[in-house]
C-alpha cells in the first residue's frame, strides 16, 4: 500500500518536474528580455526560440513511444501527454510572437493584411500555420474524458501529430537561407522516429501472431489501443 502511494507521488513529482523543466526556456527568455540580452533583433530571437522549443518538444513527444519499446519502461507513456501539451504551449507562444511582436497585430490593425497574405502566399508560413491548426484539436482532446468519449477514433485523430510534425519540420527547413545543418538534423530525427514506427508496424504485420512479433522487439508490450504509436 505504502509503495503504491509513494509510486503515485513519484509519478506526480515527475510530472511536475517535466512541466517545470518545460517552462525553464520561458523563464530564461523572460530574463533575457529584461536584461536586454537577446542581441540586436530581440523579436526574431523570441520567435526563433519559441519555434525551436516547439520542434524539440514535438520530436520529444514523438520519441516517447519508440523509447518505451526500446527500454521496456512502460511508465514513460504517462509523460507523453504532458510533453504534448508543452509542445502546444510553445507553438502558441511562437504564433503569438509572430502575430503580435513580429507583425504588430493588433497594435497595427492593418497588419492583419500582411498576416493573411503570409499564411496564404508564403509556403513556409502556410505549412507552419497548418501544423499549428492541426495541433489545436489534439490539445483539446488530450483529456481523459475525450479519450474515453472518442474511443478508437481518438487514436485516429491523434495520428495528426505525424502530419503536424512533418509540416513543422518543413516550416523550419523552408524559411532558411542557404543550407543549415540544424534543419537537416530535425528532419533526420523525425525520419528516424517515423521509421521506427513503420518498422514496428511491418514487423507486426509480417508475423501472423502479433504478440509474438512484438515480443521479438526489445519491449514486451504494444501500447494500449488508445495510443497512436
Amino acid at each position: 500500500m505504502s509503495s503504491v502511494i509513494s509510486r503515485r507521488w513519484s509519478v506526480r513529482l515527475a510530472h511536475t518536474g517535466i512541466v517545470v523543466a518545460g517552462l525553464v526556456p520561458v523563464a530564461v527568455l523572460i530574463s533575457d528580455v529584461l536584461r536586454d540580452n537577446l542581441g540586436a533583433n530581440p523579436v526574431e530571437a523570441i520567435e526563433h526560440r519559441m519555434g525551436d522549443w516547439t520542434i524539440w518538444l514535438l520530436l520529444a513527444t514523438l520519441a516517447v513511444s519508440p523509447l518505451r519499446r526500446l527500454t521496456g519502461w512502460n511508465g514513460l507513456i504517462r509523460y507523453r501527454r504532458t510533453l504534448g501539451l508543452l509542445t502546444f504551449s510553445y507553438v502558441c507562444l511562437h504564433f503569438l510572437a509572430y502575430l503580435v511582436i513580429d507583425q504588430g497585430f493588433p497594435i497595427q490593425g492593418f497588419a492583419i493584411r500582411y498576416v493573411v497574405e503570409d499564411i496564404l502566399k508564403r509556403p513556409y508560413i502556410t505549412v507552419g500555420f497548418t501544423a499549428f491548426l492541426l495541433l489545436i484539436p489534439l490539445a483539446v482532446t488530450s483529456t481523459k474524458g475525450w479519450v474515453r468519449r472518442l474511443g478508437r477514433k481518438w487514436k485516429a485523430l491523434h495520428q495528426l501529430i505525424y502530419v503536424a510534425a512533418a509540416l513543422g519540420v518543413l516550416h523550419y527547413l523552408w524559411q532558411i537561407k542557404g543550407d543549415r545543418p540544424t534543419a537537416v538534423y530535425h528532419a533526420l530525427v523525425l525520419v528516424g522516429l517515423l521509421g521506427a514506427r513503420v518498422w514496428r508496424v511491418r514487423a507486426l504485420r509480417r508475423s501472423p501472431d502479433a504478440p509474438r512479433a512484438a515480443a521479438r522487439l526489445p519491449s514486451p508490450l504494444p501500447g494500449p489501443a488508445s495510443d497512436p504509436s
Partner: protein
Amino acid sequence: MLIKRPNDIVSSEITPESLYWNRRQFLRATGAALAVAFPLSRRERGPGGEDPGRRGWVGDDDKPNSYEDITHYNNYYEFGPDKRDPSEHSGGFRPRPWTVAVGGEVHKPKTFDIDEMLRRYPAEERIYRLRCVEAWSMVVPWNGFALSKLLGDVQPTSQAKYVAFTTVYRPTEMPGQNTDILPWPYVEGLRLDEAMHPLATLVTGLYGKPLPNQDGAPIRLVVPWKYGFKGIKAIVKIQLTRTQPPTTWSLAAPDEYGFYANVNPEVDHPRWSQKRERRLGEFLRRPTLMFNGYGDQVASLYAGMDLKVNY
C-alpha cells in the same frame, strides 16, 4: 496607427555638391521639408559646410544603430550562418597584409596595398540605411570612399560593362569556407554604371574605427539601394568585365536572388514579403522604401527595365 513615412527627399547621400545646393534651394523654395534638410543638426553637425568629410546623411527618423548591434548582427557566411557567428568566429582572421588586385578591362591595372589605398582615397563618413533581403534593416555610419574614384584611376576600357568582385578564400581563417553552405569564394558584381554611381562605396571603417573583421575587414562594398548581400566583404579582386559576372547568391538560388537585387517593396522574395522591414531597435515594422529610399538618386539607372524580371 499610422507609420510615419520617411520623407523621400532626405534619402540623398553623397550627392555632388552642385546638386546638393540645388536641392537645398529647392527645399527652401518649397519650404515644406526644411526640417528634414538639416537632419545632421540633430547630431550637432551643420548640413555640409562645417564638416565636408561627413557628407552622408539619412532621414530624420533614421538613427544610426549602435556599434554593438552593427558588429554583432552580421550575415557573413564565411564565419558561419548565424548572426552572431561572424563576431564570434572572426577573431583569427588577419586583415593585414592585404592587397586588392584591380584589373580586367582597364588601361591601368594595379594591385593596391590596402594601406596605400587608404592613404590614396581618404575615407569620409557615409551614413546609409542597410536593408537586408531578410527584411531587417539598420542605419550604419560607414567610413569609405566612392568606388568610382578607384575605377576612374584604373581607366576602364570601352569594352568594360560590368565590375566583378571576389572575396578572399582562406578556409583556415574563415571556418564557413570549409562548409558547402555556399560556393566559395563569394563573388558579386555590378553593372559599370551602377558601380560608377556616387552612392556605391568601398568601405574601410565604421563609426570612425577600422572596419571590424565581422563587418568585412579590411575593405568591403556598400551599395545602399541594393539588398545587403550585394555588399561583398574582404575584397581581394576587382575585375572589369565585358559580360555579366556570376554572383554567389544567384548561383546558390537563382529563383530567389537575382543579379540586380535592388531593394523593392513591390517584388517579394518567393518565400517572404519585402513590403515591410524591421529596423533593428524598433518594435513595429516600417514600410520598405523603393530603392531603400535612394530612388531620387538611382531610379534613372533602371529606366525602362522591368524590375520584376530583373530582381
